[in-house]
């Protein structure tokens, strides 16, 4: 049998989760990610796991909270409007320091928006998944292989750092099929879950999973401790790809599906003699600030490309300390730019350098 399998991105996430030891999936149908639920519904009973369709996104994320508290590796998935509903639960899960994996296969917004691919939840994912000083790990795959790979890494990261990890994908990645190799899943050492609420058996003190700290001193200390952990993550866990950046005058910064469109445009631009490269953040939180910043001394211009109105621009400006101009090109509402549109933007910029 061939080593690789042809799969939809959504299915690859589900299968990678199962291969990573995920035994509990709680979800609610929403386009364009429903294949994850459907795949789980088929597969989970065969591997001794559970796929439960909740009555709402709110319930699904709270079932995740319970399963995570009980020590399970668990997954929930949704698309943009559903993620907004989950935001309360995400904040509680962060406040309780529980590990879980959350998938957002983004669609166009705001509101009910549309069902075509978007990256309009960048701010929400990287800055404010819920209320309070909080972050979740955010991984942005750009291929079906990475949908699988990063899902397995997300489970390990979540367990190591006791926090949620989010796969921030989009409708195109969810719906497209590419070959996947499941032999390269993450296999990091993860700590034992001695904190889990699964009964004391009279052998230990009770475990309490709680985000309520009524004393502000205590709450401040807990937030500060969590932010120290965030610093450690930023130091150790950033992931990114540099593509033809060595001699690049123009560096495009793009993630997910958009980065691939940019790669096609870059090939065309290079054929025309324009020195352009791509910096692709794979972790959107923590953001590869240092690594992108290092390019600011060499490149002349940064061009941010996204399927939104420019939500990542601020992060690029901060990372490059505004040493070089940062401009933006994107489409939104479910529209995907063609490589030619990106190329035109590159050529326009190149003419000004």
């Amino acid at each position, binding site marked *: 049998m*061939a080593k*690789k399998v*042809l799969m939809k991105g959504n299915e690859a996430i589900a299968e990678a989760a199962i291969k990573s030891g995920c035994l509990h999936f709680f979800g609610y149908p929403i*386009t*364009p990610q429903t294949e994850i639920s459907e795949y789980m519904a088929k597969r989970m009973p065969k591997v001794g796991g559970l796929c439960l369709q909740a009555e709402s996104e709110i319930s699904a994320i709270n079932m995740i909270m319970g399963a995570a508290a009980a020590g399970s590796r668990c997954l929930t998935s949704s698309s943009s409007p559903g993620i907004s509903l989950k935001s309360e639960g995400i904040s509680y899960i962060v406040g309780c320091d529980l590990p879980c994996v959350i998938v957002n296969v983004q669609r166009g917004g705001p509101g009910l928006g549309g*069902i075509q691919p978007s990256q309009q939840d960048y701010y929400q994912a990287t800055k404010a998944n819920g209320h309070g000083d909080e972050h979740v790990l955010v991984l942005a795959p750009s291929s079906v292989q990475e949908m699988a790979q990063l899902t397995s890494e997300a489970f390990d990261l979540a367990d190591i750092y006791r926090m949620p990890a989010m796969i921030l994908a989009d*409708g*195109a990645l969810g*719906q*497209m*099929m*590419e*070959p996947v190799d499941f032999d390269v899943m993450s296999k990091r050492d993860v700590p034992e879950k001695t904190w889990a609420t699964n009964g004391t058996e009279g052998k230990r003190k009770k475990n309490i999973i709680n985000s309520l700290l009524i004393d502000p001193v205590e709450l401040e200390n807990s937030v500060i401790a969590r932010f120290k952990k965030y610093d450690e993550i930023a130091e150790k866990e950033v992931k990114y790809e540099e593509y033809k950046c060595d001699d690049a005058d123009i560096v495009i910064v793009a993630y997910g*599906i958009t980065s*691939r*469109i*940019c*790669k*096609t*445009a870059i*090939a065309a631009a290079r054929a025309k003699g324009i020195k352009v490269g791509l910096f692709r953040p794979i972790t959107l939180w923590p953001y590869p600030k240092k690594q992108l910043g290092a390019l600011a001394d060499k490149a002349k211009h940064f061009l941010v490309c996204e399927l939104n109105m420019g939500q990542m621009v601020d992060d690029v400006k901060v990372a490059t300390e505004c040493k070089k101009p940062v401009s933006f090109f994107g489409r939104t509402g479910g529209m*995907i730019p*063609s*490589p*030619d549109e990106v190329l035109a933007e590159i050529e326009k910029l190149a003419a000004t350098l």
Partner: protein
Amino acid sequence: MTTNILLAGFGGQGILFAGKAIAKMAMDSDLQVSWLPSYGPEMRGGAANCSVIVSDEEIGSPVVVTPDILIALNLPSFDKFEPKVIAGGKLIYDCSLIDRTSDRADIEVYGIPATAMASDAGLTGMANVIVLGYLLKITGLFEYDAFLEHMLAGIPPTKAALIEKNKKALEMGYNYAK
């Protein structure tokens, strides 16, 4: 070498299946491949198309805008995508459903009455496979025998009755002479 293929028609014509057959074959030939469907709120009917890119290098954008090969199975798809075919590209269309042809001189145009052929041969619903056979003949994209084997291997045991039909349809398309 990269081949950008766009398959387009109505939902229910087997557009996505045909694209998958190509993608699976490409994967098993150790090529890079991507398959991207259009998707909408409706389950049946409406426009359906899918982008398939086959390459020996990393695939960038999975969206085929200017196809090297266009397979058009209905008139709206023909009208929409015929002008987009890249110069030197190939257009394959179902001339039993599309009553016009292309007057572009810079592309190769191949009409095949696939839906009528399918219906005449008692293979209703298999025009897509007939077109795949024709595609193999015209483009030489994959070896016929290898493609047949792969396509049949993808048919689940519960639908074993379809094996002979698929075989026949692919053969009819491959042997079709203009």
